[in-house]
Structures are given as C-alpha cells and as structure tokens.
C-alpha cells in the first residue's frame, strides 16, 4: 500500500451502530448505493422483456424456430458448414472474461495499483469492443437470412426484418413460397432483446473508455481511492449478467 495517501480518520466511528446517524447504515457511499438501485431498475426492465418473450414464445410452441438451427454461422467459415451456437458461446466467453478483467481492475484499485488498473480496465474495454463487434456481425448474419445474402431486401429474398423472417416452420396459410411463414415475434424479440442489451454493452464500453482516460490522467490517485472503477464495474457485471440470461432464454430454451 503506497505511503503518500495520508487521510485523516473520519470524524465519526464507521463501525458504530449502523442506524445511529451520521454514517451510512450500509457503510457505502451515495454513488455506489445509487448505482445498485439503478441496476435493480434496469434488471427489472430486462426481466420484463424476457418475461414478455416467454409469454409470446409459448403461444407458438412447435412453430417457434430452434435457435441452434438458426445461429450456425461462424466468421470466415463457409456457411454450408453448420457450427451451431459456437459463435454465441464465443461471445458469452468474451463477455465473462471481460467481467473477470473488470474484477481484477477493481482489485488493483483497492491496492492503489494504477498500472494494474490501466492494464485490466484496458482489457475490459477490448473485450467489450469484441462483443459489440460480434453482435453487429450476428445481426448482419441474422438479417441475411437462410440464403446468407444480406443485400437482397426484395420480396423474393429471405431477409429477416421486424415483420418477416424465414426461420420457423411454415404457418397455416403460408406454406408455399411466402416469406411471411415464421412467427414474426422471433425476429422482433431477437432485435429488441439483443439490441437493448447490445446498447447497454456499447454504453458500458464508452463509460469504461472515459474512466480509463481519467485513470491514466491520475484523477483517482489524487482522490485517494478507485471507487469509480467499482461503480462502473457494477454496471459492467450487470451487462454480463443480463447476457447470461438472454443467452439461456433466447438461444438455449
């Protein structure tokens, strides 16, 4: 622990009675507490989205596409070689590893190890960028449809939109040569849930970059603690947590 961080002891006893006044009963700062409350509200938003997904999806049991038949592509691999769910597994792994590097950045912050924080937070930013890029590739592949041709948005193509997609079993009345033969909700929920989540990842990456710059500038060394890393770490872990649920409910179940 470095020696030049001399801070006067607080005027009140932090280990006194929790509800005796003058100190936080939870012994946490306002910023951290508010970040937790925000995460609960955001988790409720995603909980709502996923429950709506479950509600709609079960109306279509049978016609609902099996995701391991839809998500079979891998970058640079010819699309006639199906690799079911492998790229999604890679994305999940990238996000989990970026969560781990974020925890290690927080741990380095607790030891006032500025270079450690920069290293691990930098890796977290990289992991986030790989995930967002991967998600963009997934969307492109998904929109391109089973014929893997992204640029054919005409009525004779099978591109997935919010209204039509070609992934499911033919619906009654739409068996012959009609692209509107799959539950509309499948593509709709794919875009909404992964889009909301991807936007959270993107905003997380932006915030991480801003704080990384502040770390490099020495803002937190001067402040005496790296609590900001903890706070953005909470947001980043939340993003990972949501993906764990989206991955299970959309891709596996």
């Amino acid at each position, binding site marked *: 622990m470095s020696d030049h961080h001399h801070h006067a002891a607080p005027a009140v006893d932090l280990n006194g009675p*929790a509800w005796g006044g003058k100190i936080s009963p939870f012994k*946490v700062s306002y910023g951290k507490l508010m970040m937790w409350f925000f995460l609960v509200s955001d988790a409720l938003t995603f909980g709502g989205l996923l429950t709506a997904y479950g509600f709609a999806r079960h109306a279509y049991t049978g016609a609902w596409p099996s995701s391991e038949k839809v998500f079979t592509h891998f970058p640079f691999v010819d699309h006639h070689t199906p690799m079911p769910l492998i790229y999604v597994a890679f994305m999940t792994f990238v996000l989990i590893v970026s969560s781990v590097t974020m925890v290690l950045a927080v741990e380095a912050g607790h030891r006032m190890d500025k270079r450690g924080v920069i290293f691990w937070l930098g890796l977290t930013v990289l992991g986030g960028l790989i995930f967002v890029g991967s998600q963009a590739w997934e969307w492109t592949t998904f929109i391109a449809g089973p014929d893997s041709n992204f640029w054919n948005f005409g009525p004779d193509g099978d591109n997935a939109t919010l209204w039509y997609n070609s992934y499911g079993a033919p619906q009654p009345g739409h068996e012959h040569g009609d692209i509107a033969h799959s539950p509309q909700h499948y593509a709709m929920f794919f875009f909404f849930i992964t889009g909301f989540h991807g936007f959270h990842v993107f905003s997380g990456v932006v915030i991480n970059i801003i704080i990384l710059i502040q770390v490099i500038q020495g803002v937190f060394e001067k402040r005496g603690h790296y609590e900001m890393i903890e706070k953005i770490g909470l947001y980043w872990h939340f993003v990972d947590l949501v993906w764990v649920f989206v991955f299970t409910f959309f891709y596996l179940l």
Partner: protein
Amino acid sequence: MEDRDDIIEYSLYSHHSEEEGKKIRKKILFVTILLTIITTAEILMGVTLSKGKMEHTDAWMWIKLGYVILTLVKAGYIVIVFMHLGDERKAFKWCILAPYILFIVYLFVICRHEGLAVIWGGGYG
C-alpha cells in the same frame, strides 16, 4: 472531499494489501473457472440435447430446469463475488435482493398464469 466533515469517503478506508490481494485473485480465478465450466456444459447441452430434438420428449422439462438452475448459479456467483455484494452489509444485500427476487417470482407466476389462460382459452379475442 477532505474539506467537508459531513461526507465520508468510505472507499478511503477499504484498501487492501498485496497479500490480501493474492487471496482475492485466487478466489476470482476459481469463480472464473467455475463459470467457464458451467457455460461449456450449457453449450454442450444446447448442441447435443437441442430444443429441436428434445422439445417433444418427457425429458425436455428437466432439461429446461437444468438450464435455469445453471443460469441462476452463474448469476449468483457473478452478483455475490464479482459485484462484491457478498462483502457488503447484510441489510444492504437484502435491500437489493429481496425486492428483485419477489418481483421476478411474481412476474414469472403472473405471466405464466395469464399466458396459459390465453392458450387454453383458445387464443386472443
């Protein structure tokens, strides 16, 4: 904020030493390996016991339950260890977990109930 005596910077007093850091990093590594193993198991299940193949069997309900349990275990480790909620005071932990768990359980129950009512009632309208 050293010029104010009414705002306490709790994080000024929560640093830890290099030796404590070593123990913490070991715990992080353990949880990382655990999460990787669970994710790999889920992927293998997803590919071999796939929905397309197993949806209409009796085993499908148990496979679904397996996925949900594995996901909840992962979520638990991420919240308790990575987000350090396990290191916080008990009152704070429950302030976060209790409302959320209560609401999610309710949401699941009510949506399942209403969804089944729609399906068994012959659809909408």
